[in-house]
């Protein structure tokens, strides 16, 4: 066993590093949770795509480089080390695209993926609903059969970046007489500017407006925008749900870069390693390395990854808590300045700690709460008996 990189991997790293050094904006972009920042980030997606770095793991025919998981990990290390912008396309790239690769038609892939790769179409996820959340079997929004397609109605909530996005994908109850609650669901894509769609921005807890709820009233979706078989949407969604929790959603490179910045911050404070804060800095660094090595281990497995496997629940619990620990430790280390938003005049330069903390706060909540993930770990990996939920 070894941790050495091949010539191909090293060359990819060098190429990515050089390109990023030449193209990453010298000043941080405005937050992608604001309208102006969203536009800047969309433009960055176009720049990335021109360099063929926007979707490196996709096949070449869709604008990718056909990178292996390990090559993707290497690219992501360079991406985050370079301080490159957050990805406004991530819902589409990490959640919808894997579903299309697994269950879409050739026509859907050819139509949807290139625009996604270039930032022309930015996707929002429309899965959550009031009183459903992680419990997708409780979804109440409906799809009703009509001539040549379906009519969507209902209420989707807490959709990240939906205030500014172009299109959304989600699950709808299409066969109300189905024998079980997770049967009879249909996976649909729809435009956010279609007739019958109301997008109502909802400020997040930091006040930024990109969150939204979607009110749908007989929104027409043609058959070609249904993914997989109508009524089998649960199965379609579950087969790629692991992508939302596993290593590909939150790349180890992101945490590695944050851990390096945290150590720099700690050393700049000039304190010897003692006290609880020092232990927390070290623990964050240790866990970032654990996650990086975990990624290498995943990439070293023979055969295709199993993105829907219960193991992605382990990964999700780990990275979401690591993300919080990294950012909370940095804010504590900054003392009184740790209260400042990143847009404040005296905010720590180049840290991004405040926005990072806000982002990290949501980690244990989204992509299936950590309570749900712990249930999955307990039942599917440890073989503990099922308990009652809800």
């Amino acid at each position, binding site marked *: *066993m*070894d*941790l*050495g*990189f*091949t010539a191909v*991997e090293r060359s990819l790293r060098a190429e990515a590093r050089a390109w990023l050094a030449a193209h990453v904006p010298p000043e941080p972009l405005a937050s992608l949770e604001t309208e102006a920042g969203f536009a800047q980030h969309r433009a960055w997606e176009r720049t990335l795509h021109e360099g063929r770095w926007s979707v490196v793991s996709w096949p070449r025919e869709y604008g990718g480089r056909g990178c292996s998981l*390990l090559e993707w990990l290497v690219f992501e290390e360079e991406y985050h080390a370079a301080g490159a912008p957050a990805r406004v396309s991530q819902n589409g790239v990490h959640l919808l695209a894997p579903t299309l690769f697994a269950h879409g038609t050739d026509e859907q892939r050819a139509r949807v993926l290139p625009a996604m790769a270039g930032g022309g179409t930015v996707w929002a996820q429309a899965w959550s609903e009031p009183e459903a959340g992680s419990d997708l079997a409780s979804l109440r929004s409906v799809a009703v059969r009509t001539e040549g397609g379906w009519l969507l109605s209902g209420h989707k909530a807490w959709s990240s970046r939906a205030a500014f996005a172009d299109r959304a994908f989600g699950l709808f109850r299409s066969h109300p007489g189905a024998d079980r609650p997770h049967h009879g669901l249909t996976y649909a894509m729809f435009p956010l500017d279609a007739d019958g769609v109301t997008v109502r921005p909802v400020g997040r807890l930091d006040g930024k407006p990109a969150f939204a709820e979607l009110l749908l009233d007989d929104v027409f979706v043609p058959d070609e925008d249904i993914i997989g078989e109508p009524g089998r949407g649960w199965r379609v969604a579950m087969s790629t749900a692991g992508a939302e929790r596993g290593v590909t959603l939150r790349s180890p490179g992101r945490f*590695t870069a944050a*851990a*390096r910045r945290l*150590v720099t911050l*700690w050393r700049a404070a000039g304190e010897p*390693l*003692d006290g609880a804060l*020092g*232990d927390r*800095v*070290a*623990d964050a*660094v*240790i*866990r970032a*390395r*654990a*996650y990086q*090595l*975990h990624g*290498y*281990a995943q*990439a*070293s*497995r023979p055969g295709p990854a199993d993105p829907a496997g219960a193991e992605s629940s*382990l990964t999700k*619990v*780990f990275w979401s808590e690591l993300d919080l620990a990294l950012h909370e430790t940095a804010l504590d280390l900054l003392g009184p300045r740790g209260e400042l938003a990143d847009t404040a005049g005296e905010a720590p330069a180049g840290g991004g700690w405040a926005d990072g903390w806000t982002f990290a706060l949501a980690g244990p909540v989204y992509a299936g709460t950590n*309570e749900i*993930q*712990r*249930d999955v*770990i*307990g*039942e599917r*990996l*440890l*073989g*503990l*008996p*099922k*308990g009652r939920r809800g």
Partner: protein
Amino acid sequence: MRFALDAEQRAFGRVLDRMLSAAGTPAAVRAWARGEHGPGLALWERVAAAGVFQPAAPEAYGGAGLLPVELSVAFVELGRHGVPGPLVETVAALVLLGRLAGAGEAAPAEEWGPRACAGRARLTLAAAGGPYALDADVADAVFVVDGPQGAAGGAGRHTLRLAPGHGPVQPSLDPARRLARPHGDGELLATGPAVRDAAAHAAEWAALATAAQALGVGHALLDRTVAYARRRTQFGAAIGSFQAVKHRLADTLVDLEFARPLLLGAAVALAGDDPGTSAAVAAAKAAACDAAYAAARTALQVHGAIGYTAEYDLSLWIGKARALRSAWGTPRECRAKALGLYDGL
């Protein structure tokens, strides 16, 4: 890159696991704790025959070459089964003597290497790990490294001696670990900077082996606790169906699963003598020992009062999880070193 155990390495672990499962290890552990070493020594011979010490010594001295990955695989299993004795210390002594031999001082390695690798001699030592030697009363050789404390530049003289005896054997929080202070003086085996370097290198191996042992201890605690939580009912349901219980066990698995890549990463670093080895080993030790100790706390909580009794086997691993935390590097020392994790990368 292939960051995964190969088929042979996985088979090595499986064979050890099967052999130790069949060996009735808990009885040997209990006897060892009482100072009755017979069953434990018989176990020692079988473990040695399976090759667990060979990855710690060059072929010229009875080993298989220096193979920290294989050593880690073996020590996870030794920890899982709670095997008693100066296992880590024998590894540390072998590495120390092997390194000294590489620096031109071959006589001690020639004398002790082949015997220890074959299980015919048990070694222990007091060095950077602290003033105590583990299980000195069953060791055929008690080595003592002495020198200026914490002197990175090594201003004073470092010596390696063979202790002529040891003080009273004292109990540890883990009843199967028995500590003694070696007597001073004794035969001088080597001296100078080579001793300092060899002792520091041996301490890395000892920390790695301890981390592996802790990971195995953690898995043993989790496995037993999961089995108990499936079986034991309260309020008409298996307690493992309660979220409060299930989530603690899930967290235990998360901690253990993410300590494993750190362990294997440290073993790879040690194999390559990478500049970042010390930080990688320290990170592995901190994470594995934390995970094992948290597993012990969870195991006790889920078992309830029965887990608090000495007659129930769980106690064998709970004490060990605590003891391994401070053996061969305290949590604080390990964290201080681990801060340098990204310096060499």
